[in-house]
């Protein structure tokens, strides 16, 4: 049983860790592949801090003799999915990274002339209907997954951004004696190769989140191994004494025990890798969807195994086994050859150990709490989390002991007195499993509170942001103007143009919107900070609104100044929440936007109309303008689609949450099973004194349920603290937004009941065994024949 527990505990720990590592490694490999294939790692790039680069600028650089290749990048919806579209000049784009069709029947003329061609990796366009695409699509395994490439002319048309260039690749081979780029285009920024791996940086926080979860699961698994290894060595003390009494050197005994532990770690590591692969393969599609949805990161949903992943898994298994077994090995080392017969403990000695542990826990918590003040940043947020979690885990045994002591003092009757006193005396053997349960429950409460807070806030936020009843996307500016004119002619209560331009704000790419002055914005827009008369300031062109991400990253708040484009400075009138968008965003009045940017598309607008008239208006629009059904979306559809993206985001977190709770329940079960041989001599006298086996079995069940219940209660404040750190520290650092914390008592109750069930399930097997144990087996306790 101990062998199985040890191997299974270590395999679970290694498995969950390896699963997370497999996902991270796969995603990073995809980023690197994308960066490599897009030339980010090979070529210097030229970009403009103030927004898109004009074609004139490109022409000026080319005329000066520089070999550069223009790239236009944007997001595009194709067949109901969102992709990064990369338009490149196929004549100047470096051959080694240029897309090539897998089949030879695509000529350069097909690519360069209308309708053009789209290139995508076979994995990217799997299940995509060709008929739903505006341009024929061909497969090319040289295109990174998640990205669609095309000629820059086609991209301009699809993105509706004529004459715009996002960046230029500076080719490796250049003529001699060229004038410096800084002289030709002083406003452009030259970025060296390998310095532009933005995707990797952007998604670092997500991967750090996953790694933290992996580490937590690993730690919970190690609790199991620590407990089991300790017990296994404890029970072999007699054998070790005998061997030493027979003249076997202590060093040899220690080496043999370590070799044994190492072999077990290798076996468990192998099992863990298999388990890790299965978990990673199951979770990766959702992770890929999350990364694509949140960051537009090109991650494939399929898993390829890396040698370093194997090495890391086995290494963690060995290190984990050694870490978990060190304490037990140390005790064997200190074991005297001769010793008094073992005596069951009252728990007096453990009370002192609990106090020491709790002191260490307080120190860890204080260290964690001081980190954000001293260091700041995402890593310090995680140090704070780790300090809180581990500190609380270390304080748990003392807290439990005190709670049980309080109850014990009020207990009436011999059985109740024994039950509570016995419960307290069992804490040393069960404390590791209970710590694991505390961590799992607190994580569930913390992450659950975060996710539910997010869901609630996001739902409310969508209601505010998506106030228009219909959202229309015309096929061209001309069509857009015709529709707007028709709508304004008494068909709708109001038409709210959605017009935007791409720019750079505070050295980050950002999108700037122009809006008309309307009650829809004044009444609904979710502002989190603002100056007085904020909407008047926006309407008269003296104020700009920025999103929370931009505000937090640039530490820009109402009253501060910001430069939305070169030579244009505005006062920030307000900051609005903007969940689910990694980039910066700003809002000015529409006339101001149009005066600052040329060629702003006029294809999208929202329509205000009474909800009961909306379906009729939609039908009329489709009929009168021969629009495709996808051109008009109603409020509910967009909300559903947005919520679906966010639900997917938390699928992985939810799955890891459940796995961690499962591991913790398993920890209790293994502790109870491994303690079984020690428990029987404590229960048999009770039976001899007149308690039935059935009653004892029920009390055993109750013992586990009570411990899980009290641990569940103690996990609540820890879980809420965890939720606060996630919402107020980790989220802000990771995504740039801060969410209000909502409380969900019913969820806590459900989780607490789940903890009680976990305790009951874990104790069910030992209790059943006790209930069915024949008297002869119990009598062996008294006969000393065991």
């Amino acid at each position, binding site marked *: 049983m101990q062998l199985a527990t040890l191997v299974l505990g270590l395999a679970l720990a290694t498995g969950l860790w390896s699963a997370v590592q497999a996902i991270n490694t796969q995603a990073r490999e995809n980023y690197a592949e994308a960066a490599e294939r897009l030339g980010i790692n090979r070529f210097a790039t030229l970009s403009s801090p103030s927004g898109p680069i004009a074609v004139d600028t490109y022409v000026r650089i080319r005329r000066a003799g520089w070999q550069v290749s223009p790239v236009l990048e944007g997001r595009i919806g194709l067949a109901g999915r969102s992709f990064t579209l990369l338009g490149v000049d196929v004549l100047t784009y470096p051959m080694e990274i240029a897309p090539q069709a897998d089949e030879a029947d695509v000529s350069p003329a097909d690519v360069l002339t209308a309708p053009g061609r789209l290139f995508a990796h076979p994995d990217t366009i799997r299940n995509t209907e060709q008929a739903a695409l505006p341009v024929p699509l061909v497969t090319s395994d040289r295109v990174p997954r998640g990205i669609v490439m095309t000629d820059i002319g086609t991209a301009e048309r699809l993105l509706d951004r004529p004459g715009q260039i996002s960046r230029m690749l500076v080719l490796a081979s250049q003529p001699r004696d060229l004038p410096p780029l800084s002289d030709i285009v002083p406003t452009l920024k030259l970025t060296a190769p390998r310095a532009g791996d933005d995707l990797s940086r952007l998604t670092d926080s997500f991967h750090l989140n996953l790694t933290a979860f992996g580490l937590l699961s690993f730690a919970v698994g190690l609790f199991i191994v620590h407990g089991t290894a300790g017990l296994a060595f404890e029970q072999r003390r007699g054998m070790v004494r005998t061997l030493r009494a027979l003249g076997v050197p202590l060093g040899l005994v220690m080496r043999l025990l370590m070799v044994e532990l190492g072999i077990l770690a290798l076996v468990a590591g192998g099992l863990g890798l298999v388990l890790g692969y299965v978990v990673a393969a199951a979770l990766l599609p959702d992770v890929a969807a999350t990364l694509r949805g949140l960051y537009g990161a090109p991650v494939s949903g399929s898993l390829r195994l890396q040698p370093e992943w194997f090495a890391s898994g086995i290494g963690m298994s060995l290190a984990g086994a050694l870490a978990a077994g060190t304490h037990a090995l140390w005790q064997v080392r200190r074991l005297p050859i001769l010793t008094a017969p073992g005596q*069951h403990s*009252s728990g007096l000695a453990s009370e002192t150990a609990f106090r020491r542990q709790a002191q260490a826990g307080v120190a860890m918590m204080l260290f964690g709490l001081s980190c954000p003040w001293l260091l700041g940043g995402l890593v310090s947020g995680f140090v704070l989390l780790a300090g809180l979690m581990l500190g609380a885990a270390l304080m748990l045994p003392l807290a439990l002991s005190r709670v049980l002591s309080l109850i014990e003092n009020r207990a009436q009757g011999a059985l109740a007195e024994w039950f509570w006193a016995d419960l307290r005396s069992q804490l040393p053997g069960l404390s590791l499993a209970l710590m694991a349960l505390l961590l799992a429950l607190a994580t569930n409460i913390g992450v659950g509170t975060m996710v539910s807070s997010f869901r609630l806030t996001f739902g409310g936020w969508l209601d505010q942001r998506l106030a228009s009843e219909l959202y229309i996307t015309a096929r061209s500016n001309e069509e857009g103007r015709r529709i707007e004119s028709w709508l304004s002619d008494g068909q709708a209560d109001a038409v709210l143009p959605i017009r935007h331009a791409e720019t750079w704000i505070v050295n980050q790419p950002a999108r700037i919107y122009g809006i008309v002055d309307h009650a829809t914005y004044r009444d609904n827009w979710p502002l989190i900070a603002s100056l007085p008369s904020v909407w008047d300031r926006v309407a008269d062109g003296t104020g700009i609104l920025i999103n929370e991400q931009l505000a937090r990253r640039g530490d820009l708040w109402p009253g501060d100044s910001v430069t939305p484009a070169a030579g244009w400075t505005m006062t920030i009138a307000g900051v609005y929440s903007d969940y689910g968008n990694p980039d910066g965003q700003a809002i000015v009045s529409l006339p101001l936007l149009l005066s600052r940017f040329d060629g702003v598309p006029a294809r999208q607008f929202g329509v205000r109309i009474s909800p009961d008239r909306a379906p009729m208006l939609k039908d009329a629009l489709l009929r009168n303008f021969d629009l495709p059904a996808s051109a008009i979306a109603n409020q509910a559809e967009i909300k559903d689609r947005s919520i679906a993206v966010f639900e997917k985001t938390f699928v992985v977190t939810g799955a890891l949450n459940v796995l961690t709770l499962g591991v913790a329940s398993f920890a209790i079960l293994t502790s109870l099973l491994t303690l079984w041989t020690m428990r029987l001599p404590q229960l048999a006298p009770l039976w001899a004194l007149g308690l039935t086996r059935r009653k004892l079995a029920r009390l055993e069940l109750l013992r586990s349920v009570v411990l899980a219940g009290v641990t569940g209660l103690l996990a609540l404040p820890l879980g809420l603290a965890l939720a606060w750190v996630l919402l107020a520290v980790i989220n802000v650092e990771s995504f740039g937004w801060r969410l209000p914390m909502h409380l969900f008592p019913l969820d806590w109750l459900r989780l607490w009941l789940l903890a009680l069930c976990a305790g009951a399930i874990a104790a069910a097997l030992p209790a059943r065994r006790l209930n069915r144990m024949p008297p002869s087996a119990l009598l062996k306790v008294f006969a000393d024949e065991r």
Partner: protein
Amino acid sequence: MLLDVQNVTKTYPVADSTRPVLDGACLTLGAGETLALTGESGSGKSTLLHLVSALDGFDSGEILLDGMAMSPLSDVQKAALRRGPVALVFQQLNLIPSLTVLQNLAFHARLGGREDPRQIAGLVDRLGLAGLENRYPEQLSGGQQQRVAIGRAIALRPRLLLADEPTGNLDETTSDAVLDLMLDLVRGAGTALFLVTHSPRIAARMDRHLVLKNGRIT
């Protein structure tokens, strides 16, 4: 007759066969009487004690306690028997480690609903445990623990006290002192004592001495 063991047999499974331990064992014990049972190791002394205390079942024969047959008793009734008229003292003592000396002393009596605080207080003095009431078993010497185990059984005020090598782990002087105390207590309370021992010296101090050999009592 308080205890009447009638032609009891008991076998244990050994590999593919069975090994007879008791083969028609018979004995009787009157109220307030003391009886020693001796025999070689593995002769079945402890087994007979376990049968009498309703801890284990027998294959055939009957055991009557105060005229009541034990074989038809349910698990719950047997447990009630051990909380009432019958009490045991084990060689390993089996005190409850999480309870104090005082709690251990009162535990069995409280389980059986027979707690008498004045009696417990008297026992503390008579057992020489004054000042040790709030200590835990691990903080006591072997002799002190043995006295607590005996006190726990006596506090129940059973009609029959069963003792399995109660002084087996003690030196001769301490063993004599503990035995003196036990005999004193059972005689004072009118309790019958059925004691299993290896020691002829201890057996000689009982009212009667029986020997178990080849599964039979002589």
